[in-house]
């Protein structure tokens, strides 16, 4: 039976005493008529591509077509050469990896949409950075990515994961909820703690609009990947010490959907409102598209 809600997922996990990632890989194996090992290899391919995107992004300072973006990660690296980040090495890596991946995306580099291309930096930054700093084995990263995927999948049963449908809530916001759950899985949390982390992350991105300047996946998208990667860590830390969302996760998803419906079309990937309609954005637009 298909899992349509987080309640279905939680019930199945508790009744069958299976972690979320086991349910995810079993469902995928059945749906795609593949062995579980093959499903895990496909996840490993994604993970390998995520790492390559981080590596390429950390090296490059090539600007995007617009000419304004592409060197934020380099600035961050320069700072950390001389001083450690305020919150330590994990924070340093998460912010750098998220920017590296998002910048690689804007220069037409190879990335993994997770769930979308615009939000591709969040999940990889969190799981790769924490795995490196905590020496977490590869198989646990596959478990984490499957957990992230299952969370995104359950949300996508109710809301299409597209800025044009529900704003950035449904892209970077959902990516952050996926990363929060993945992180709890990596750190040995329970099914309930994973779902609490996702709920906490999701509650705090509600209403996030999609207003890309000049319609490009650059401003504010790149930096937002770094912010929402760190956001996922806050949610995971809270969930791991037993903090709970008073509003159950399925209800939070309903609110996300409803908020997306209430959101003006001007703020849903049309670049007709928000940051995209500021004075500065309109000046940039004139230069970029050589409009008078």
């Amino acid at each position: 039976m298909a899992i349509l809600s987080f309640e279905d997922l939680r019930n199945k996990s508790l009744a069958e005493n299976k972690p979320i990632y086991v349910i995810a890989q079993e469902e995928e194996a059945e749906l795609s008529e593949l062995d579980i090992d093959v499903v895990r290899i496909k996840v490993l391919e994604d993970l390998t591509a995520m790492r390559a995107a981080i590596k390429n992004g950390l090296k490059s300072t090539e600007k995007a077509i617009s000419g304004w973006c592409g060197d934020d990660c380099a600035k961050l690296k320069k700072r950390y050469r001389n001083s450690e980040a305020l919150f330590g090495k994990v924070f340093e890596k998460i912010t750098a990896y998220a920017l590296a991946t998002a910048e690689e995306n804007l220069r037409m580099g190879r990335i993994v949409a997770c769930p979308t291309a615009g939000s591709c930096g969040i999940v990889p930054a969190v799981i790769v950075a924490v795995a490196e700093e905590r020496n977490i084995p590869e198989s646990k990263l596959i478990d984490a990515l499957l957990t992230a995927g299952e969370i995104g999948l359950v949300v996508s049963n109710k809301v299409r994961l597209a800025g044009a449908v529900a704003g950035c809530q449904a892209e970077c916001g959902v990516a952050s909820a996926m990363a929060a759950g993945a992180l709890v899985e990596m750190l040995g949390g329970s099914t309930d703690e994973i779902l609490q982390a996702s709920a906490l992350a999701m509650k705090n991105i509600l209403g996030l609009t999609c207003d890309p300047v000049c319609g490009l996946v650059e401003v504010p998208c790149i930096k937002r990947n770094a912010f929402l990667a760190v956001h996922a860590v806050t949610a995971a830390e809270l969930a791991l010490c037993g903090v709970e969302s008073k509003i159950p996760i399925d209800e939070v998803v309903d609110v996300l959907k409803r908020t997306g419906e209430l959101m003006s079309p001007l703020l849903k990937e049309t670049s007709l409102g928000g940051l995209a309609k500021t004075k500065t954005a309109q000046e940039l637009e004139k230069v970029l598209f050589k409009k008078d």
Partner: protein
Amino acid sequence: MEQKSIFSVISPIMVGPSSSHTAGAVRLGLMARNIYKDNFSKVKFVLYNSFATTGFGHGTDKGLLAGLLGYTVDDSLIKDIFSIVHDVEYSYEYVQDISRYPNSVDIIIDDKMKISGDSVGAGEIRINNINGFDVNIKGNYDTLLLMYKDKPGMISEVADIIQKQKINIATLHCGRDAKGGIASMCIELDIPAGDDIVDEIKTLNDVFFVTNVRKLK
């Protein structure tokens, strides 16, 4: 509700920056390649609406051409495609037309075939018109595409041929320009039809055109 794959959320591996404007564009090009099949020397892309206004910053133009030339969504060479391609004449036209989908394109190959399609989000696409005939090809299944004279009994004749090989039909879509005119049929199959099926359908009376369109990877 149709059950979705976890890889609809944690994939595809693709070149950025946009699943709809970049990966979707590449897949539309690839699908046109699978439909046209022959080598070509000239192509014109007509980009509509959001493809026309924001496609530049998303490499939509490069993606469409690269796909038509057989590059897949994750190929790092896509961003340099204009400096790689020398033996094909390509051009672009940008149009606003609210009757078309927000991310829409016509691909006109060698002035012979016009293939129209949309990028519908998350890299998913649909081809909805070929040379003026409504079709419905999404690239998720191998698809048999037929053009024939509209007349009673054609669906069952074609279905019989497919049934003999024990291939399950996933979906069936028909259209026509007028009663008794030219009709089109798109049959999505669970497993690909062999050349023998295509050849047998060709022998039916009043079938003008039949081709096997491979699904996208």
